[in-house]
């Protein structure tokens, strides 16, 4: 007698991704798809894909998706949610999309308490375009636009999105997880499930920031990347739940 302990979720299409070897997007897509599928919401889900590596998210996840102009993902998601308030609306974004060009859109969607769930992939650089500095780049980190390492005196310190958004009353759930170890992967899934539940209960805005590997642009092997995350990235971007008002009643 045989049973399957780990199976591929129908929330994802049966296809090979074009993401790099070791890329965090693959894990994030899977956790999001599993959480949506397991809560029975897949056929009610509308996702907004960013400009960035995950622009191709719709090739992999199995729900209605639209692209958005760079950074405008939360604005597009906010409008979709207003037209279809009973759908599950996801805004999936990377460092540039959310924290740079889209900073106004994310802050205002969060401040309005738009009932959307944002999945924010933080890999401290702009992946799709070849590894430029992002607002989340660490001080001293070498990127293609900081060849001598990020100089905080002129370009600032890394931006901590989950903490920033948690300060806004419209945000009911803000957490940061990571994807490079099995325990953290399980935890990240529960963060996503919590965030989706906040949306489904109509409480407000929810965001899960996920620290992800980017071996290609970090110029490291996958295993070296894991070490970098543990030794240098997590100390700057601590994992945890920064706000959880999911116990609150809907406003």
């Amino acid at each position, binding site marked *: 007698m*045989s*049973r*399957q302990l780990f199976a591929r979720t129908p929330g994802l299409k049966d296809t*090979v*991704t074009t993401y790099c*070897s070791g890329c965090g997007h693959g894990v994030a897509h899977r956790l999001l798809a599993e959480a949506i599928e397991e809560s029975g919401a897949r056929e009610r889900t509308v996702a907004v894909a960013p400009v960035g590596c995950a622009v191709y998210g719709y090739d992999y996840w199995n729900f209605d998706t639209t692209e958005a102009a760079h950074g405008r993902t939360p604005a597009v998601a906010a409008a979709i949610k207003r037209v279809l308030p009973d759908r599950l609306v996801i805004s999936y974004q990377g460092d540039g999309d959310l924290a740079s060009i889209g900073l106004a859109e994310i802050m205002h969607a969060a401040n309005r308490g738009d009932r959307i769930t944002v999945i924010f992939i933080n890999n401290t650089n702009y992946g799709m375009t070849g590894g430029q500095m992002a607002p989340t780049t660490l001080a001293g980190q070498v990127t293609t636009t900081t060849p001598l390492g990020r100089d905080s005196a002129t370009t600032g310190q890394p931006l901590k999105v989950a903490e920033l958004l948690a300060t806004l009353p419209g945000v009911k759930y803000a957490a940061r997880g990571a994807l490079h170890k099995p325990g953290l992967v399980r935890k990240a899934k529960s963060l996503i499930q919590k965030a989706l539940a906040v949306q489904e209960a109509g409480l407000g805005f929810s965001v899960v920031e996920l620290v992800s590997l980017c071996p290609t642009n970090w110029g490291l092997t996958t295993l070296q990347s894991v070490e970098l995350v543990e030794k240098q990235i997590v100390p700057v971007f601590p994992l945890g739940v920064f706000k959880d008002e999911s116990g609150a009643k809907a406003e």
Partner: protein
Amino acid sequence: MFRVKVDPRRCKSCELCLAVCPKKIMVITHERNEHGFHVAACRDERECTGCLACALVCPDVAIEIFEDKD
């Protein structure tokens, strides 16, 4: 008895499964897939405890785990 089934089409040889396996039974084989990646595999399923660590970290959902009971 557990079975660790790696889809060679999906594996990108990132070695995360090797790093997280508590029994150190995941290896990179000499088998290359159509994309040129050397495919991972479980070298001895008898040692597998069914912890699912490899499947959880795999970015390409390449790994399925089965349990066979007598």
